[in-house]
């Protein structure tokens, strides 16, 4: 790998992963805030108004960081991946432009109303929350349509000069790959937001602060989180994995660590891929499970890495394998914790179970790690292709941006985002410390 290609890849991977820490909470929280504001509007209850205002403050903070870290991604298609932009702009330019026109404007125009909400009636605040919910989910839809096309190109034709052009907009927007990807991604976003809400609730309850708010946070977060984390595993996670084995079998073999083609392939829960011997060290394996999950047949044949030429293997097998196992493992642990919390809530015991509240509080980072690992699975597994089967990553870079420039900006982004991360954590901590039910809820509503 030439060093410019390496820096280009690292820069995109880093800026995209860092960026996605914010919109996953934005999208999940937009959904839950709409629910909370609807409740506040229908019941005309000051309690729900305070709960909504508290989460709106966190939403706005998070949204701001999401916006400023999101802009570099669109720019980088052109700055660092010029040959890819030239090759595929006729297709993915469509979905990116739709995101700008249909989603970004909507979100940014109505965010101002939530920020300056003291000037507006509850009905208007509810309406702005609805628009932000719609806008952020539309944004997710168009971005995932872009990614789905890179994973599974459809609705295109190759022009005389070798570039690709879209030949059906509806085909592009209803890419079969997109269905499971969107469902899986959005349920995961709801899990993130639910876990954060529940964790803040657990923190307040354990600290003996804002008890009534804390209980509402916990109820909302645990119920939504338990449902969403179950959906995240089945059917959406399962659906995604199945389409990987159908359309990108080499990716599936790589993330499962299946080096050789087998009938009745097992599922590795634990183990380290050894590239010297092409085996898994320290395996803990469920026999026949992989064959069953993919083909509903305990003895079905699953293609291993040996069935594919070496130059089509993803180029970082161990990282891909770990990313997938971290995603699946943490997802399962999260579903278990939230399921247990839901069970306890159902029986009226959750608010007194100190150890479980501790567990809920400390599991707040898990969904972030799981979603980052999930994206690493999807994107590392797509290698060595930038557009699956059509354009290799090595052929997508900018021809005249040399490694010195790419390294300079990579270092710049690392430093800048370190500062951003510190600022965000500091301000988030401050908002949580400040607590719900103060300043803004005491201010008079002018409308």
């Amino acid at each position, binding site marked *: 790998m030439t060093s410019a290609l390496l820096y280009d890849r690292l820069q995109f991977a880093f800026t995209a992963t860092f960026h996605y820490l914010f919109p996953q909470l934005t999208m999940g929280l937009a959904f839950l805030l709409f629910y909370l504001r609807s409740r506040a509007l229908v019941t005309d209850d000051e309690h729900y108004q305070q709960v909504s205002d508290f989460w709106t403050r966190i939403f706005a903070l998070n949204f701001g960081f999401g916006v400023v870290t999101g802009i570099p991604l669109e720019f980088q298609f052109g700055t660092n991946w010029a040959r890819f932009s030239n090759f595929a702009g006729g297709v993915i330019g469509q979905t990116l432009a739709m995101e700008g026109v*249909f989603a970004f404007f909507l979100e940014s125009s109505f965010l101002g109303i939530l920020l300056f909400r003291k000037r507006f009636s509850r009905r208007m605040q509810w309406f702005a929350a609805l628009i932000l919910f719609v806008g952020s989910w539309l944004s997710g839809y168009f971005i995932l349509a872009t990614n789905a096309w890179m994973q599974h190109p459809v609705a295109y034709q190759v022009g005389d000069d070798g570039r690709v052009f879209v030949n059906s907009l509806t085909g592009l927007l209803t890419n079969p790959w997109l269905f499971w990807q969107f469902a899986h991604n959005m349920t995961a976003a709801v899990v993130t937001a639910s876990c954060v809400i529940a964790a803040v609730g657990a923190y307040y309850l354990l600290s003996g602060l804002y008890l009534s708010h804390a209980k509402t946070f916990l109820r909302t977060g645990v119920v939504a989180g338990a449902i969403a984390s179950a959906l995240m595993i089945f059917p959406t996670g399962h659906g995604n994995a199945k389409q990987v084995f159908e359309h990108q079998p080499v990716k599936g073999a790589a993330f499962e660590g299946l080096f050789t083609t087998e009938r009745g392939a097992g599922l590795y829960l634990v183990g380290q891929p050894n590239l010297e011997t092409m085996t898994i060290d320290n395996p803990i394996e469920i026999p026949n499970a992989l064959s069953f999950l993919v083909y509903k047949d305990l003895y079905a044949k699953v293609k291993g890495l040996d069935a594919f030429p070496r130059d089509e293997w993803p180029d970082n097998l161990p990282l891909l394998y770990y990313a997938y196992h971290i995603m699946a493992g943490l997802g399962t642990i999260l579903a278990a914790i939230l399921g247990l919390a839901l069970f306890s809530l159902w029986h009226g015991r959750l608010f007194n179970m100190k150890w479980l509240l501790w567990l809920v509080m400390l599991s707040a980072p898990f969904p972030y790690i799981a979603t980052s690992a999930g994206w690493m699975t999807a994107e590392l597994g797509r290698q060595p292709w930038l557009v699956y089967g059509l354009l290799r990553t090595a052929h997508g870079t900018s021809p005249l941006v040399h490694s010195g420039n790419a390294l300079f900006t990579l270092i710049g982004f690392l430093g800048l985002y370190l500062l951003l991360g510190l600022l965000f954590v500091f301000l988030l901590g401050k908002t949580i410390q400040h607590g719900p039910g103060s300043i803004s809820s005491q201010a008079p509503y002018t409308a």
Partner: protein
Amino acid sequence: METLWFIVVTLMLAIFIVLDGFDFGVGMVYPFVVRTEADRRTVLASIGPLWNANEVWLIAAGAVLFFAYPKAYAAGFSGFYLALILVLWLLIFRGLALELRSQVDHVLWKQAWDTAFTTASLLLAFVFGAALGNLIRGVPLNRDGYFFVPFWTDFQPGPEPGILDWFTVLLGLTTVSILAFHGANYLAMKTEGALYKRAVSTAWVMGRVSAGCTVLTVTAVPFVQPSLRLNFAGHPMEYLVPFSGIFALGSSLYLRQRQRDTAAFLSSSAFILLMLASVMFGMYPYILVSTTDPALSLTVFNAATDSYGLTAGFAWFGVGFLLVVAYQSYVYSLFSGKPRSDDAH
């Protein structure tokens, strides 16, 4: 269809410069008009709910350029690599400054973000002006349709130019002065009392500076890019556009002096729109002019995607554009009138 999208992209960029331009201008004149914390909060509240949506015009214009002219997007964005990454970093700081200033009640925190807001606004206005200068002057495109320009070479607009040369620096400074004038006009519309007086006197100074800079720039353009003059010579009626632009600047200065705040702001908006329209008329059909060999230039025809993409795109874009204009006007109307200093979020 290729021409239609050229108009769309330039229109979106022009809307971006007019709308985000006033909040950049507010950022630049900010230290000169505020004295107290209440002043600062009033000024920030005047753009607080609006700047983010204004900035989206840039993002959306970039995305439309991407899908309509992938080749030009690829060439331009990779060729201006350093300048664009710098723009990204500045946009990040500026966005953070506006969002985070009110979050902590400490004088150093507020001073730091005030400085970041002004510095980033100033540098961004300069870079956008210099970028326009680069488009007019041209870039050293190679046979594959790519180029790379460093920040500077010998500061001459020759065949191997840098991003900065005397011409692009002049355009950067002109843009700074015009947007400062435009922003001060906006503030005059949105403030009262002592703050209003300072906004008006700043606008008056910046208005005269921008008139001077504009004259210099308009004189310099035909020497740097003769093809621009050829386009106008071929269609003399098009001279109406830059001349009405100059007229709009004059009337904006006149209205400024008569304290007609809203009319002065609308005139400076019209001035910016008409000057950008003149550049568009002059440049057409070129998107990126080559300084090495004219035959290597990227035009709206050789850089465009195929006709299905352009036609199908127009259907959804038309609907989306009208929707955006409708609800953005609605949100502007919600925040019309003069903000109070306790309006901050």
